[in-house]
């Protein structure tokens, strides 16, 4: 990869890192998710700035070009993140349902009691 590409990718990584840290500071991103993103960003930057690592990954993944390796890794990571986030969404959805059910049952009991 050319130096120009490495600089751009490192800058993108730094921007994402600052964004994630800022969102966490403001309480808009939960620390457990922030940790996942910080680790992923740092790993991404490490692969980009250490070329032998990228070549080694290319050999392992079986891609011809190092940039293709980055695409394959990015696709894999994003796919995994989608499943993880949908799982978190489902957990939250179940919690909301459980709370709503409890509210409904409590309301029914209160109404019956007052009658």
């Amino acid at each position, binding site marked *: 990869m050319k130096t120009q590409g490495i600089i751009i990718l490192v800058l993108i990584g730094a921007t994402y890192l600052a964004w994630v840290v800022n969102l966490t500071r403001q309480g808009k991103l939960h620390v457990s998710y922030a940790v996942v993103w910080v680790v992923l960003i740092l790993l991404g930057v490490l692969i980009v700035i250490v070329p032998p690592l990228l070549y080694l990954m290319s050999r392992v993944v079986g891609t011809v070009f190092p940039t293709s390796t980055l695409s394959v890794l990015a696709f894999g990571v994003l796919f995994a993140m989608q499943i993880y986030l949908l799982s978190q969404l489902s957990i939250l959805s179940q919690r909301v349902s459980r709370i*709503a*059910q409890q509210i409904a*049952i409590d*309301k*029914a009991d209160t109404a019956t009691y007052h009658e």
Partner: protein
Amino acid sequence: MNILIGIPAHNEEMTVGSVIEGIYSMVPRYDLAVVDDGSTDRTREVVCNSTAILVPLPCNLGYSNAIVTLLRYATKHHYDAVVLIDADGQHDPACLPGFIAGFEESSCDVLIGSRYLDVHNYPGGSPGRRIGTILFSWLIWLLTGKRIYDTTSGMKAINKKAIGLLLEQQFVDFHAEAISYLLWSGLTVAEYPIAVRERSHGASMYSALSCIGYPLSVLLMIWVSFIESRMNNRGAKKL
């Protein structure tokens, strides 16, 4: 037997009142609870004006969550069993005395009100639903060895043991996937012939799009239920 009759209702203002009246006229000695699943019409008002217990969900959670709410309500109040009946008026409350008596006399854990044990009872229904029901009936037969003809019936009697099991697992709409789970868990499920009328008001909860999504969801949940019941059975054996 201390039985709770439960009705999950969503936007059924035109029919829920007559269903409640019908139930009270046929089986007045049982408690009746209506879960209003976040209706945007006058369903809640109609139930409030009756003597039924209103369990008002603050937002629309869907059919299965309305059923879960009823099961949780029954568990909290120590009912021995829950009898579910639809709010759209398709189930004739005149069937209830026989249905409940059949459930009390039998030793089964779940009794399903079946429109297909006597096919002449059912005046219509979409071909898609009929085909789907037949396919899921065959699937349950193949997987569990038990033939259940009406896998999508909303009329069910469920005892305490089955309620406990159903609350442990998530289900699509408590149809084929729940029946398989109960059978694999060693519970007994039986059918009782009932009369089913055509829906007079409102729309079915199944849209054209759900004709694709629903069977796939049920198939996935049958698979999940199989794994879950095997794991539960293995855990029980170890204990």
